[in-house]
C-alpha cells in the first residue's frame, strides 16, 4: 500500500477495536476532520476498561 500518486488520498480511517485506545484514536481523527469507521465485535464500545472497578493511582471509578 505504498502511496500511489494517481489515486486520491482518502479522508477516512478505519479503527479496529473500540476499547480505550480505539476510542481515543477515533475521537482525535474525527475531531480534526477525518471520517472514522470504528469497528467493534462486541455489542457495545468500551473494551476491558469498562470491566474494571477502579483505576490507580487515583482510585477513580473506571466507568
Amino acid at each position, binding site marked *: 500500500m505504498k502511496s500511489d500518486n494517481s489515486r486520491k*488520498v482518502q479522508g477516512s480511517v478505519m*479503527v479496529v477495536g473500540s476499547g480505550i485506545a480505539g476510542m481515543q484514536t477515533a475521537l482525535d481523527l474525527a475531531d480534526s476532520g*477525518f471520517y472514522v469507521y470504528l469497528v467493534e465485535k462486541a455489542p457495545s464500545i*468500551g473494551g*476491558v*476498561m469498562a470491566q474494571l472497578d477502579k483505576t490507580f493511582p487515583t482510585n477513580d471509578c473506571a466507568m
Partner: protein
Amino acid sequence: MDKCIACGECAAKCPKKVTDTFNAGLATRKAIYVEYPQAVPLKYAIDAGSCIYLKNGKCGFCAKVCPTKAINFEDKPVAVTLQVGSVVLAPGFSTFDPQKLDTYQYSQYKNVITSLEMERLLSATGPFNGHLVRPSDHREPKKIAWLQCIGSRDINRCDHGYCSSVCCMYAVKEAVIAKEHSAEPLDTAIFYMDMRTYGKEFESYYKRAEEEKGVRFLRTRVHTIIEDRNTQDLVLRFVDDNGKLIDERFDMVVLSVGMETSKELAALARRLEIELNADNFAATDCFSPVKTSRDGIYVCGAFQEPKDIPYSVMEASAAACWAEADLAPARGTLTRTKTFPAERPVADEEARIGVFVCNCGTNIGGIVNVPEVAEMAKGLPGVTYVEENLFTCSQDSQEKIKDIVEKKGLNRVVVAACTPRTHEALFQETLRDAGLNKYLFEMANIRNQCSWVHSKEKDAATSKAKDLVRMAVARTRLITSLGQPTIAVEPSALVIGGGIAGMTSALGLADQGYQVYLIEKEGQLGGNARSLLTTWKGDKVGERLAEMIARVTGHQRIAVHTGTSVKASSGFIGNFETVVSGVSGDKVLRHGAVVVATGAEEYKPTEYLYGRDPRVLTHLQLDQAVAAGDPRLASADTVVFVQCVGSREEERPYCSKVCCTHSIKAAIRFKENRPDSQVFIIYRDIRTYGQREYLYKEAREKGVIFIRYGLDEKPEVSDKGDTLAVVVRDHVLGRKIELHANLLVLAAAIVPRDNEALAQMFKLSCNSDKFFNEAHAKLRPVEFATAGIFLAGMAHYPKPIEESIAQAAAAASRAAVTLSQESITVEGVVSHVQQFMCRACGECERACPFNAIAVQEVEDGLRAAVVKEALCKGCGMCAVACPTGAASVRHFGDRSVLTMVETAFAAGN
C-alpha cells in the same frame, strides 16, 4: 437497532440464561442482553449462539414483548467494503487462561479466581453489587492472596517470557480496594518476584499500600495450592526468604493473569500482512512505536506490547497523529458540518412554553401516570402547548417538536423524560433546527428520578413527576437565549524543548500542515538523546537522532530557535501570544497551541564516591565513554552497577523507570565484548517491564550476576587503589561480600528540570516530585488542565525514547484537534462578572480550576475579575467563592435556581 429503547422487556422475558462474559463468568445473563447498564450504544443485542429462536426456530418471546418492534430475527451479517486512507489497529488483548497451569487448580478450586474476576467482584455493577464475598460459599473472606506473574515471565509452563507490565499495580490496587470493601479487617498478601511499580505515582501508591494500608508483600513464588475439602480454604505452600518451607491458609486466591494476543487476533494480523514479533505483538521500532511493518497501518494499545491505560491512550493519539499526517491533504473532504436556520430572537416575547411528556414505552408510563402529569402541565403559567409521546426521543418525535415549535410559535421547550446526560444534546439540536437558541430548553428527569427509583410507589412517583415538571417550567420562564461567540484560531503551535519529544511533536504538527515554532534553550537540538547509545531494542540513537534533526531543520513549516527561552506568554486556546528571548533579542510569536517538552535531567549522585573517583560513572557518562572509545571500558575486568541511585528513596520516592533496562543493556554489552569479564548488577527490584524482560533473561544467561539490596543496607564503596571495593550483603548467601570493581556505574535518577518559571507563566501545576501534572492520569495523559497546552516526554515523568515519542506524537494529535478548527465556539453556559459589584479580592481566581477568571486592570486604576470565556467550563466555582455575588454562571443564575426551590416547596400537595 434504531428502534430499541433499552427498556429491558425482552431480557426480562427471555427464558435462556447464559454465562455472563462481561462479569468474567461469575454471573449469568440472558441470550438477549446489554453488557452493562452504561453500555454505549445502550441497545439490546441477541447472542445468536445461545438464542433459542435462532437455533430452533421456536420461542420469540422477546419479539412479542418488544414495544417498539425492534427485534428482527432475519438480520444477517453482511460484508461491507470500505475505502479508507488508513487503518488503526486497537484490538486490545486477551487475559491469560490459567487453566493451563495445574499448580493453581483454577478450574478445580472455586476460590481461586483471576484478577479480572476480582475486578468484577469489587465492582458495584458486578455479580454481588460490590459486596466482597468468595465464590464457593458467598462468605466474606478474611484473608486473600494475590499471586503475581501468572502467564508472564514464565517460559517453562506457558511460553510467555515477557512481563505483562500492569499486574503489579493492579494487584496492589485490588488489595487496597478489597480492604476498603471489607467490613472486618482483611488480610491481603501479594506474592511477587519483583514489584514493578515504575509509572507516575505508582511507587508512592505501593508504599502507601504497604505502610498505611498494611498490604503484605512476599517475595517468593507459591509452588502448591491445596484446598481444604471441608472449608474450601486454600493452603499455600512456599519458601520464604530464609529458605524455610511455609504453609499459610487463605480464604481466596487471586491469580494476577497477564496479557496475551489471542489466536484470532494473530490470524487477523496475518490477513492484514503486518509483522508480529515472537510474542505475537505487532512489531514496531522505538522511533516509530505505533507504525506496523505495513505503510498506512498503525497500532496502539496492548496489541503493540502489554501496557496500561495512559500509555494506550498516548499511543492511540500518536496513531491518529501519523494517520492525519499521511492523509492531511484529504482533511475535511469526507466530513460534513451541519447547518442550522437563523435563530429567532425571543427576548421581547412572553414565554410560550411547550411541554413534551414522554412515556418511554412503559418505562415511565408503566409507573408514572403520564396523562395526569400532562394535564397538570397545561395549567402552568406560560405553558401554551402540552403533548404526550410514546418516545419523545424518536426521530419522528423530533420532526413533530420542530413542527409544533414553528406552528404554535413556541419560544421555550420542556421535555419531561429521561436524563439530560444522554438526551439533552439531541433535543437542543431539534430546537436549533426549529430556529430556537439551544439554551431555551429544559429537561425534567421523570424516568431515573421517578419511575425507576419509585417503581413500587406509583402515586408517589406521579406526584414527584408533577413536582419536577412544575419546577422545570418555572425555571424555563426565566431562561434566555445565550450567545456562543466564536473565536478565530491561529493555526500554529509553539513547542518548548528541542529534544526527541519536542522534535516529534513539531514534526507531527508540521507534517499535518501547521506552522511550528520550536524553541530550545541549548545551542543545539537533541537534548538527552545526544548522550544515548541505543534504545533497548538496539536502534542506534545517534543515527536516528541525526535523521530527525535534519528533518526538523529542513522542514519548511518548522522555525527552529535554538539558544532561546520563553520570556512571557498571554492569551488562551487558539490565541496565544508568547515572547521568546534568544541571541538575536526578543521575538513575539502568535500561536494557537503550546506543547511543553522541556525534558528532565540526570541526577548528580552524592554517594558511592561519585565526583571524587573517575572510575565512578553515571549512565549517560558510560554511554558517552562507549561512544568516545574510552580504553578503560575494554580493560575493565570487573564492572559493578548500582541501581536506584537517588530513586525510590525518601527524598525522591519515585522510580526513574529507564535505569534497570539501561544497566542491563550495558551489562550485556560488557559481556559481549569480553565474556571473561565479571559484571554485577546490585538492585532492589528489576523493572524490565514488557518485552524488556528478555534483556534481563539474556543478561543472566550471559553470566551477569544480580545481587539484591535493601534501603536499610545500601552497598558501601571504598577506594582500594587499583580497584574500588564494593561491599554488599548477598541475598542468597545471607552474608556480606566484597567485589573489586574497575568501573562502578551508577543508575542515577532522572530528575525534573526547574519548571517553576514556565509553570507560573502558563499556569501549569506540578506533582510533589516536581514533574508536570497532566489533566487526568488515565484519560488525558498529554494535556494540561488549561485548554490548548499539551505535555510530552520526560517533563511529564521519566520514560524511554519510544514512550516519549508516542506521547509527543499524541500531544501533536491533541493540539491538531484545536488547530484544525477555523474557530472555537465558546459554550453559552459560562461565568460572568458584574463589575460594579466586584471588589477584586481574587477569591474567584483562586477557586477556578481552569484558569478562566483573573483579576486585572479593566480601566485606569480599576481592578476587577475578568472571565476568559474560551477557557470557562461553567462549573460555577467562582460564583460560589465570590463573597459579593458579582460572579455568576449564565443559565444557572440565583434567580432561576431559587425559583425551582420555591416552586418545589409551594407545590401544595
